[in-house]
């Protein structure tokens, strides 16, 4: 039993150690955020197919397909609409 508990704790520790790649956007008052619909329209103008926009850690999180038709889960600054890349993700599409 002790060995089982030790194993579980070890697994949890290893899991915690790998916890990186978080994403966040600067805090800002609500008025400074542009509407999610505006971001959706902008992305669709660039050839995206948007299936969902929601808030995540101060960013707008977009699910859909990017301009190349590839599945995308992307984060954007709600004010500037600049793309925010999580740590550890290659910012290949950074502009």
């Amino acid at each position, binding site marked *: 039993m002790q060995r089982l508990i030790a194993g579980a704790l070890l697994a949890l520790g290893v899991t915690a150690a790998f916890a990186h790649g978080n994403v966040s956007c600067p805090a800002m008052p609500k008025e400074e955020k542009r509407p999610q619909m505006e971001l959706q329209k902008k992305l669709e103008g660039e050839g995206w197919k948007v299936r969902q926009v929601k808030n995540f850690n101060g960013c707008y999180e977009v*699910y859909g397909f990017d301009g190349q038709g590839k599945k995308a*889960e992307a984060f954007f600054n709600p004010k500037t609409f600049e793309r925010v890349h999580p740590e550890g*993700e290659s910012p290949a599409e950074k502009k």
Partner: protein
Amino acid sequence: MRIRVWDRIVRTLHWTLAGAVATAWISGHWPPGDFDAVHHTAGYVALAAVAMRLAWGFAGSRHARLAQFLRGPRAVLAYARALRAGHEPRYIGHNPLGGWMALTLWLCAAAVAATGWLYTTEWLWGYAWLEQLHAALGWLIAALVGAHLGGVVATSWRHRENLAAAMLSGMKRGPAGGDVD
């Protein structure tokens, strides 16, 4: 006298599914993207374990079989009443409530895994409703696991028999007077 109740396949699949569900649950509640590969793998393992367990429910040893432990509503009700009155019989395999709990857990695990997989397909990728359904099923399975553990602890206590250990070794105390197979 101790007898073999849970065969090797039952035990292996039980702990495989338990590990996969725990891994999927933890990795799924970490910030997005960090553990996608782990989360997906755990989901596939869970789905495979449920499929094999259901198949084994027709082909396995006596107490592995669905037909052995899924009892009709009358038996379930009678057991629940006896439980409330504090004189429920000991079962060698699953008791009537435990049997249905096992099936419910398998189906819920399969449903979480299936909705999660569908979310990764181009067909349904990104839809909020599917993400919410997947998350809701995730919380449902957490609640079911809680109830399952509660049932295991309570039944172990009532009949002075460590049921978690029995799922590791496969061995349980042999039937005595009043016990039900």
